[in-house]
């Protein structure tokens, strides 16, 4: 729980900052049977990022990384919109898009688990080629569609709640059930923590890793549907551009180490919300949107520094508090190696 403290503090501070500029920031109201308010907007617009980040969390926990999710977002939206524009019907369009995403994810997982390529490289292949593939599907154009049913996925409401938020809650619920109620989470953490030891303990890592990459791509696919539905069009070139970086950030801010092992889904959600709140805040306090990236850089640096044990040790030492000196990771490795420390 302690590792969720700092992301939570940052999120609260960011939200509180808005009060000074938008007094009505925290008010949530029902208008025309729909929930309205800035907080709802943060959740609604943050939904795709949260989805992608959930998938990314599992991948990172296995000690991997998935750079291709942004391209998968674009491919999913492109294929769904293409199908709808060719009157294939909504169920068919969604099924085709998500089906393709599963295949692409399984391909990533296959490269990593069966062929044994480093994850960053294996998914770099699809990151580069996938963008081309999305543009190939849309033939380099932006496909615009007009389908009210499809529009619901990203922009609709159900029982006053934005549909996107419900999708996020559902995906989060399923993931939490699979990982924490069932034993998937422990096996993922074991594979990410020590792959060879896991193999010798009889864990079938290959299947788990392939499944994790497939589910990351599936999450990205749903996010892709949401994004394209929200704007009723598919843009192979720009949809989901750099979302993989935001998702990785969200995971890291949420306290999951890029080295794999222990992961935290709630931390990831907090991380994604921080990133989304930051964007919203910049608009609401009237800073020129060009500087969004600057603020993002600053917040990312701040959050990562706060979470870094060696930074905290140094900062506290400077203040003259005689906190017990935590060994730096480097020292910990050394101490662990001797086995007799």
């Amino acid at each position, binding site marked *: 729980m302690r590792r969720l403290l700092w992301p939570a503090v940052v999120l609260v501070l960011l939200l509180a900052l808005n009060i000074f500029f938008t007094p009505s920031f925290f008010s949530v109201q029902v208008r025309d049977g729909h929930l309205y308010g800035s907080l709802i907007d943060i959740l609604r617009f943050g939904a795709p990022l949260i989805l992608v980040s959930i998938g990314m969390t599992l991948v990172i926990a296995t000690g991997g990384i998935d750079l291709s999710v942004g391209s998968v977002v674009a491919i999913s939206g492109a294929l769904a919109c293409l199908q709808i524009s060719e009157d294939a019907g909504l169920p068919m369009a969604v099924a085709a898009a998500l089906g393709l995403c599963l295949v692409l994810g399984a391909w990533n997982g296959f490269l990593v688990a069966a062929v044994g390529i480093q994850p960053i490289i294996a998914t770099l292949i699809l990151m580069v080629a996938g963008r081309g593939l999305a543009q190939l599907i849309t033939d380099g154009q932006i496909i615009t569609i007009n389908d009210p049913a499809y529009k619901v996925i990203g922009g609709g409401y159900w029982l006053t709640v934005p549909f996107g938020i419900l999708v996020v809650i559902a995906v989060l619920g399923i993931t939490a059930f*699979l990982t924490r*109620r*069932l*034993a*998937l989470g*422990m*096996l993922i*953490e*074991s594979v990410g*923590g*020590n792959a*060879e*030891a*896991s*193999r*010798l*303990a*009889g*864990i*079938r890592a290959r299947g*788990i890793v392939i499944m994790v990459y497939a589910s990351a791509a599936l999450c990205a696919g749903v996010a892709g549907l949401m994004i394209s539905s929200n704007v009723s069009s598919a843009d192979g070139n720009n949809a989901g551009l750099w979302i993989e970086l935001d998702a990785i950030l969200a995971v890291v801010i949420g306290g999951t180490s890029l080295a794999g*092992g*222990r992961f935290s889904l709630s931390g990831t959600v907090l991380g994604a919300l921080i990133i989304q709140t930051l964007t919203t805040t910049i608009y609401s306090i009237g800073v020129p949107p060009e500087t969004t990236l600057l603020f993002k850089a600053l917040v990312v640096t701040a959050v990562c520094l706060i979470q870094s044990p060696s930074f905290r040790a140094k900062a506290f030492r400077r203040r003259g508090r005689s906190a*017990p*000196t*935590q*060994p730096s990771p480097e*020292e910990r490795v*050394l*101490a*662990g*190696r*001797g*086995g*007799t*420390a």
Partner: protein
Amino acid sequence: MAVPAPVLTMSGIGKQFPGVKALDDVDLRLLPGEVHALMGENGAGKSTLIKVLTGVHPADAGTIELAGRTVAFGSPLEAQQAGISTVYQEVNLCPNLSVAENILLGREPRRLGRIDWRRMRARAHQLLARLDVRLDVSAPLSVYSLAVQQMVAIARAVDIDARVLILDEPTSSLDADEVQQLFRVMRRLKEEGIAILFVSHFLDQIYEISDRMTILRNGRLVGEYPTSELSQVELVAKMIGQELAALERLHGEAKTFDRPLVEARGLGRSGAIEPFSLTIHEGEVVGLAGLLGSGRTEVARLLFGADHAGSGELAIGGAPTSLRTPRAAMTHRIAFCSENRKEDGLVPDLTVRENIVLALQATRGWTRPVPRETQDDLVGKYVKALRISPPNPEIPVRNLSGGNQQKVVLARWLILEPRLLILDEPTRGIDVGAKAEIQRLVAELSDGGMAVLFISAELEEVLRLSHKVEVLRDRRLVAELPNDESLTTDVLLETIASGGRVS
């Protein structure tokens, strides 16, 4: 008694880690031209003391004097420059670089600021020759065995103008010949007036090479003794803080075994182990003896499916089978505690509980979690039975000492109630007390009908536990000897040396 002035004096050293007092008021004196053994169980503080000395950790209390001057090193580099070189327990070299570079990295011969590769290779050659080692020094280190890499590490350490040389368990990966080679080098360095601080778990080696010793226990100083004035029994007593009962053979009577469990016929894997035949019966403890690299671990890995057998047949309980994965072996209730528990055994991030139930969970797959109550029951039972300390199953396993980590891996397999338990060096690098506990446990398990394949570098241990001993040499199984009164360590040594051809 003209005692020369110490070259190094550490006094009143204290070191605190979160939750642990690793060192408390420890003194150490090194005289020039002596081999000084640093003794203690795991967790006694040996490694921490060495790390404080070499500047890896700062000391919280106490002073270090080198040749009369007070020093405090901020890094291993500073220590090295002041004349304190270290060869660590595990080979700390860069496998991707050439042998020559690994020896001379950081002080490469240069001409006009440019590394002179030719002189570098020549110098490396010369330094290795001093240790009677001949290698292609331009080949990457990774092509050589661990033992050779260890020699390279020592060559590196002695090249530095060292006044103090620290050898932290350098012999744990060397075979007998290589140990003798190392000792020759140590004696030569001693004559040159270098003080050598030597850490080893092998008591015989300590008595062969060391002049004096300092004993630590639980982070405190027990005392400093001349080696010749302290008997082995006294030493062990001081290390573990109690008198150890005399070691006796754990299996009294030679039993007969008639229910074969695992039968290997011509099982082999090219480049790893020549085809061998081996039968393990229910309730039988089979010892594997042989030098490092003789194929001991390879036999175990084939029987567990960790590697694929290239040839031969395997029958388990009379039914022919092939073990393609560890998982397949586990369905036949074969368990394997590997030699390298840090790399092949533990998941350091996970808790003690999770590490213990890991294999059980793996057999059930992720869709059928082991209920939490069952986990707590099983874990509680084995934490108690194996006396895992601290007895808190919810702390990360990385925080445990080596011996306790070994017990965690053991517990993982014991809850599966295997029919064959393969133990690869289960007592390596752990303290004397834990060693005896594990040995006793093996005897109990086999009395209960479990078959055990026991691998150890210590012949006494193999003799103590096994019903029969398989001898390996040069990746071949050369002899099978029943363990009766006529079998002694001398006989075993002879068999290993002769390859079983003469008897």
